[in-house]
């Protein structure tokens, strides 16, 4: 009945970036990624792993990468966190699979939030976790390769 409100996004300024902000709760894309997350689970033989805990709410995200020729060929994640944290990590992992590490590094939480169709304002910070964990994993890989971390 009021579904139109659920998915009504607004563009707002947040940390000097433009985000789509949902005025109320989670939209259907977010709920879909939360209840059926893509790439969820552990990866025993990962080439790189990055883990990040949010100082703000204790959300924790771990990202596992399989990398061939600088390309992310497989990705998995685990998250202890709210729906926003789970959904944005699910979306982020889905967006970087098949991408080069350079491309993956450039993915911002901004783009993830927009791909999700927006998040409630006070949940935006939860989407930083995926970006940070991904960066940690990529840098771990670079270090393993003897490269300077980005």
């Amino acid at each position: 009945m009021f579904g139109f409100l659920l998915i009504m996004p607004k563009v707002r300024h947040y940390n000097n970036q433009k985000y789509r902000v949902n005025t109320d709760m989670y939209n259907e894309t977010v709920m879909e990624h939360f209840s059926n997350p893509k790439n969820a689970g552990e990866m025993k033989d990962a080439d790189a792993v990055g883990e990040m805990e949010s100082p703000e709410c204790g959300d924790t995200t771990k990202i596992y990468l399989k990398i061939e020729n600088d390309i992310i060929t497989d990705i998995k994640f685990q998250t202890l966190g709210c729906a926003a944290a789970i959904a944005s990590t699910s979306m982020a992992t889905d967006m970087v699979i098949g991408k080069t590490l350079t491309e993956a590094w450039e993915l911002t939480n901004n783009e993830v939030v927009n791909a999700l169709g927006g998040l409630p304002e006070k949940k935006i910070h939860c989407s930083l976790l995926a970006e940070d964990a991904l960066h940690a994993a990529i840098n771990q890989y670079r270090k393993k390769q003897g490269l300077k971390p980005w």
Partner: protein
Amino acid sequence: MTKSTPAKIIYMDHSATTPTHPDVVKEMLPYFTEHFGNPSSLYRIARESKFAVSKARKQVADVLGCTPDEIFFTAGGTESDNWAIKGTAFANKDRGNHIITTKIEHHAVLHTCEYLEKEGFEVTYLPVNEYGIVDPDVLIKSITDRTILISVMMANNEIGTIQPIKEIGEIAREKNIYFHTDAVQAIGNLEIDVHEMNIDMLSLSAHKFYGPKGTGALYIRKGINIGSFIHGGSQENGHRAGTENLPGIIGLGYAIERATQNISEHNEKISSMRDRLLDGIIETIPDVHLNGHPKQRLSNNINISVRGTDGEALLLMLDMKGVCVSTGSACSSGEESASHVLSAISVPPALARGSVRLTLGNENTKEDIDYVLDVLPPIVSRLRALSPVNNYSQ
């Protein structure tokens, strides 16, 4: 999964709010359209409104053991708390500026006290033990000769802990300090007698006992020095201005009578369901911790921390299965940090984040309990499988 609506809604969040009982709605209905007169008016249809309000006032007074002219209708528990605390604080500031309350009060009390701190009052927020219970000895020690008000809730909305109100009331009486109690969660669950319990002011709210939202009451013992909070017309004997919420007041009166007719029978029925649910959860899910006191708690309240999960995630997954619960107080769900009540009883943050509250009500059945015991364990397993932090005991 997101879009499919479950066949049935199993509502287990009665401490957040209750549905208004259809019989209560039925009592209210004539006062919208037919007996709609303004109780302040003089013609007969308005006098009927006035008499209906008097009747509701008596219904409330009878439950609390006071006289009808000690009952004042408000717009809810929050307004009652604001009025009691600000009203006595400002009226008695020549006698002192010290207020004592607890760390686990509802925000309606806490944020009101914080406001008063900005206005020059000093507030002591009493600690509670691991079960959420105030120690009367600690209370006594915190009293100074500047103390004008003690406000301790009767039962906590998050963890259901019941306070030793009679003892606290005695201390307050002995020291000649006003005693207010937020009884919003207690009505219908605890027997109350304001005289026996030495209560000077008591807040209640209709929507917590199958009455309508937006109506409450404040009991003010005769002789208490308290100012008005809302100024204007001479309603409520000149103490609370504003055209009376006529259907709301009728609904409150009828609902409180209904909810307090068989308190012990009600508690027996509800607590046996609650215990079955709690036992079932603890049996089937490892590393679940009960928050609050095992016995000295509201008969309908379960508050558990499920290690390795997130309360919001649990709540949303239960919702997809048609089960309504809350994580922390409904009021503070907009906040990110762990609930102030769980912090006060020293639940570690990592555990507190996986907390949910299930509060049963009259409509819940044994089948509902079975259903929740069916759907909750796989949800917990799923969330734990998704979590990178697996340090819980299997």
